[in-house]
């Protein structure tokens, strides 16, 4: 798999976004089949994200269920011009998971736990159709390669910010770095990811 950011990968990304937008349009007309397809495309990364943040399979499933029901109910409000359906779904999932973590006040303990070894987790790809699974794997590989290409200190800052649910100050304390340094690392890390993953619109 080549790193994302080349023309083919960008075209694939745009095609995926168009397809997702079409699914949302159909869901807005109460198309149950479109919902099932969207579930097959999004459920794995959304669940993995929730599980990474919460470290609890049952709670992660609760969050994913809530998010998909919200997507179904708000499908008519989705506007492709404001961002991709996937970005919207990830934002909903992440915000709800972080809210739950904050409510439990156990986030530092949870982050230390390993999610991949969670006993209740299904094997990756379970319930997905072959095409979706392959596309998802390719996408995941490209993103992981892009993150791995970041300097280690930028990786740490970005991962803590995305999965930790910490404030800026808390991230600086965790990394034992000045707040300004941490902000700069997050800025450089995200800009580089954007350039690598082809998120730039121009």
């Amino acid at each position: 798999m080549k790193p994302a950011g080349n023309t083919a990968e960008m075209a694939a990304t745009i095609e995926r976004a168009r397809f997702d937008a079409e699914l949302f349009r159909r869901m807005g007309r109460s198309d149950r089949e479109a919902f099932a397809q969207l579930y097959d495309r999004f459920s794995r990364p959304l669940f993995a994200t929730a599980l990474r943040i919460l470290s609890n399979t049952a709670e992660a499933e609760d969050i994913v269920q809530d998010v998909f029901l919200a997507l179904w109910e708000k499908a008519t409000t989705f506007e492709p011009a404001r961002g991709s359906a996937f970005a919207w779904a990830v934002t909903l999932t992440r915000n709800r998971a972080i809210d739950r973590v904050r409510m439990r006040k156990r986030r530092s303990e949870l982050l230390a736990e390993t999610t991949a070894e969670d006993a209740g987790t299904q094997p990756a790809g379970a319930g997905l159709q072959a095409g979706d699974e392959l596309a998802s794997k390719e996408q995941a590989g490209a993103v992981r390669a892009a993150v791995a290409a970041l300097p280690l200190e930028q990786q740490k800052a970005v991962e803590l910010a995305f999965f930790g649910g910490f404030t800026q100050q808390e991230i600086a304390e965790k990394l034992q770095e000045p707040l300004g340094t941490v902000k700069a690392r997050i800025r450089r890390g995200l800009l580089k990811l954007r350039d690598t993953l082809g998120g730039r619109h121009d």
Partner: protein
Amino acid sequence: MIDDHHEELASLYALGLLEGAELASFEQELAQDPALARLVSELRESTAQLAFTAPAAAPSPALRARLLDELDTAAKWRAQGNVIAFRTPIWLPWAAAAGFAIACAWLGQLYVTSRFEAANLRDQQTLAEFKLKSANNQMEAERLVATHQLGAATEQLAALDRQLKAEGDLAKLKIATLASLAGNSPQALAVAVWSPLRQEGVLNVEKLPALAADKDYQLWLVDPQYPIPVDGGVFTVDPATGDAHITFKANRPINSVAKFAVSLERKGGVPKAEGPMVLLSQ
């Protein structure tokens, strides 16, 4: 051209890390700057891709089935809801007006009742305050009486204590009569009283011979704990009558007095009896 500071704010915003005034200020700028809005959108897309860096995991197949069931159930409810038509009855406005009138009457009655109850409560409060004040006054009066009674009782107790001490002292008094020795003053007589508690005594002497100018009578107390008599002080007598009445103290602590004695000594007294013994108790 977006500067570093705004790129930084956009990155933090995309990750949901802006808060409070910083967040409000940035959102205001965002609404007015399309380039900034586009950067935020791009960064949000990149940020969302981070979901793929989480360790691979999939929800249970049951979740998919559960979600689809929920959609079906919701669709059924919606369908049932759609077939029920609702037509406004003709009597509804009259019923609403009647309901409003009843509600007004009820609220009016409630208002009057509340006012009456409030006045009642105020009266009860005044009465309770008056009772409280009376109770406080009574308690203060009782406190004063009790203080006075306590003072009197303390005084009585102190008097009783003094009386008991005096009686105890009296019981322990040593009283002795002293008589003449060897016929040198045959009519002389003395009575000595010694208080062990106070360590002092009284001596009453009659008809002792008058003293020469260079002489004094000296009183002695015989205490078995000492090898020689203890000095009780010197005294003189009235040259005309030979009488004397003195209060004396021993020059050493006295445990018990076995005898009293009076000797004739040189003026000012001596530490150890030297002169003739003129009186001795039995």
